[in-house]
């Protein structure tokens, strides 16, 4: 069965610093991978998704993620974090049913 792991429960970065949130998946074939963001008091919003093709995908709000089959990873990155990026980030894998990771809470220091 597919599963997804987010190793970091909480990450703190300074505003303007770069960000990388880790995501590892378990699935027998190439999965469909997603990153969602949940801001405080808000619903879930899709940042980006990977189905096939170019392994580096661009999303909204300046985020990108890279699919690495050899590492079973789909890490989320942003070159320069803004204070408004503070939120909970969820990685998800979906084939015949979406499964989410436990989430990584991002705190941004001024």
């Amino acid at each position, binding site marked *: 069965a597919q599963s997804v792991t987010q190793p970091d429960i909480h990450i703190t970065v300074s505003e303007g610093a770069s960000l990388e949130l880790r995501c590892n998946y378990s699935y027998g074939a190439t999965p*469909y991978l997603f990153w969602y963001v949940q801001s405080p008091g808000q*619903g*879930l919003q899709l940042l980006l998704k990977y189905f096939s093709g170019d392994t580096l995908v661009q999303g909204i709000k300046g985020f990108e993620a890279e699919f690495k089959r050899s590492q079973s990873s789909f890490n989320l990155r942003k070159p320069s974090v803004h204070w408004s990026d503070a939120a909970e980030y969820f990685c998800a894998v979906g084939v*015949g049913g*979406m*499964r*989410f*990771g436990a989430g990584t809470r991002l705190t941004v220091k001024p």
Partner: protein
Amino acid sequence: GAGVSQSPSNKVTEKGKDVELRCDPISGHTALYWYRQSLGQGLEFLIYFQGNSAPDKSGLPSDRFSAERTGGSVSTLTIQRTQQEDSAVYLCASSVTRDREGDEKLFFGSGTQLSVL
């Protein structure tokens, strides 16, 4: 409506009572999911409906939990004999699934905050 609608938005109940949570997916969306998000926790998969196929119930935590989807549209999640540990936000999501190869973007409802006293 334009989005996924869930009702009620908040539900307070006493331990041992039954509750029903409702989800109206986006019209035309064939896939419907229920998730649970407890305080400080991630999204816990509960159940997945896809068209006329048998639902994937593998995430339901106990036999007190059940869900149905009538007419391929509205879904109801029922929790019988509620316990305090059932307190959480219950999220419904729907999507358009093109085929068996994968799932498209999920559209989430605002959730139902369930509090069991």
